[in-house]
C-alpha cells in the first residue's frame, strides 16, 4: 500500500473500466467449454466408434473437465487480481500509478501534482466511445517523463479532476511561498 503524508487527502481512486476485465475474461469463458466441444468433435468425427476410455469413460471425462474448469477458475482470478491491483490514486498533493504485472512484478510511480506538464485524455474506438473509457497520458517534469493509464472510465472527467487538483496544489504552494517571504 501507499504511504500518505500528514494532511494528504485522497481525491480520486481510478481502476480500469470493467470492460477491460471482461475483454480479458471472455476468451477464458469460451475456453471453459472446450471439453464439451472436444467430446462433441470426438463423437462427430467417428473416433468414439473405435476408441473407448476405460470401462467408465464418464468418470474420466468428468475428472478431465473438472481439472480444466479449475485451471480456468484460477486463471480468472489471476486476471482479476491484476485488474484489481492496478490503480491510479490522486491525492491533493501527488499521483500514484500502481501497476501490477503478473504476480511477481509491481511498479509504483509517484509524482507531485505541481510537476505535471500536460494531461491528455484519449478515447479510441467504437466500444470505448459508447462505454466512455480510454487512456490518460500524464506528462511530468520528473524522472518518469510520461505515465499512461490505459482503459480508465470517464477519462475526460478524470483529466478535469486532476487538472483541478493540480491548480489547487500550485496555488497552495504559491501561498506557502508568499507566507514564507
Amino acid at each position: 500500500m501507499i504511504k500518505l503524508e500528514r494532511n494528504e487527502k485522497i481525491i480520486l481512486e481510478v481502476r480500469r473500466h470493467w470492460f477491460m476485465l471482461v475483454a480479458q475474461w471472455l476468451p477464458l469463458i469460451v475456453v471453459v467449454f472446450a471439453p464439451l466441444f472436444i467430446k462433441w468433435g470426438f463423437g462427430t468425427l467417428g473416433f468414439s466408434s473405435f476408441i473407448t476410455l476405460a470401462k467408465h469413460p464418464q468418470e474420466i471425462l468428468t475428472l478431465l473437465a473438472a481439472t480444466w474448469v479449475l485451471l480456468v477458475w484460477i486463471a480468472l482470478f489471476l486476471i482479476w487480481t491484476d485488474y484489481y491491483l492496478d490503480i491510479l490514486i490522486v491525492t491533493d498533493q501527488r499521483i500514484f500509478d500502481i501497476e501490477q504485472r503478473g504476480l511477481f512484478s509491481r511498479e509504483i510511480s509517484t509524482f507531485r501534482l505541481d510537476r505535471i506538464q500536460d494531461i491528455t485524455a484519449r478515447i479510441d474506438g467504437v466500444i470505448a466511445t459508447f462505454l466512455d473509457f480510454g487512456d490518460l497520458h500524464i506528462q511530468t517534469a520528473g524522472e518518469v517523463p510520461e505515465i499512461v493509464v490505459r482503459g480508465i472510465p470517464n477519462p475526460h472527467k478524470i483529466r478535469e479532476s486532476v487538472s483541478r487538483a493540480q491548480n489547487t496544489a500550485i496555488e497552495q504552494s504559491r501561498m506557502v511561498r508568499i507566507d514564507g517571504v
Partner: protein
Amino acid sequence: METASGAPFTPPDFKAFFIDSGFFKEGAQIDFFVNPKILWVSAGVLLLFFVIISLILVYHWITYGYKATTVTLAMLVYFAGAFVIFSVILITLLAYGNAIS
C-alpha cells in the same frame, strides 16, 4: 449441417482411414484403462498446485488489497468455486474407484 457449396456435411471417416493405412485391424478397439491410483496422485498434485497459487493470490489480496470487503468477497467466491470443483473431483474419484473394484 451443410458445407459452403450447399452439399450436406459428411464427417471424414477416420476409422476407415486408420484401417486403410494399416494402422488398425478391422474391429480393433483402443481401450484406455486408467489406474485409480494414478488419478488420486494426479488429484493430489492438482490440489498442491491449487494451494500454492491460492497462497500467492491471498498474499497479494491481503498485502496490496484496497478494501477489506472486496478482498473478503473475492476470497469467498474463489474458495467456494474451488470447493465445488474439488468436491466434483473427489466424488468422481470415489465413484471411479468403486466402479473399477
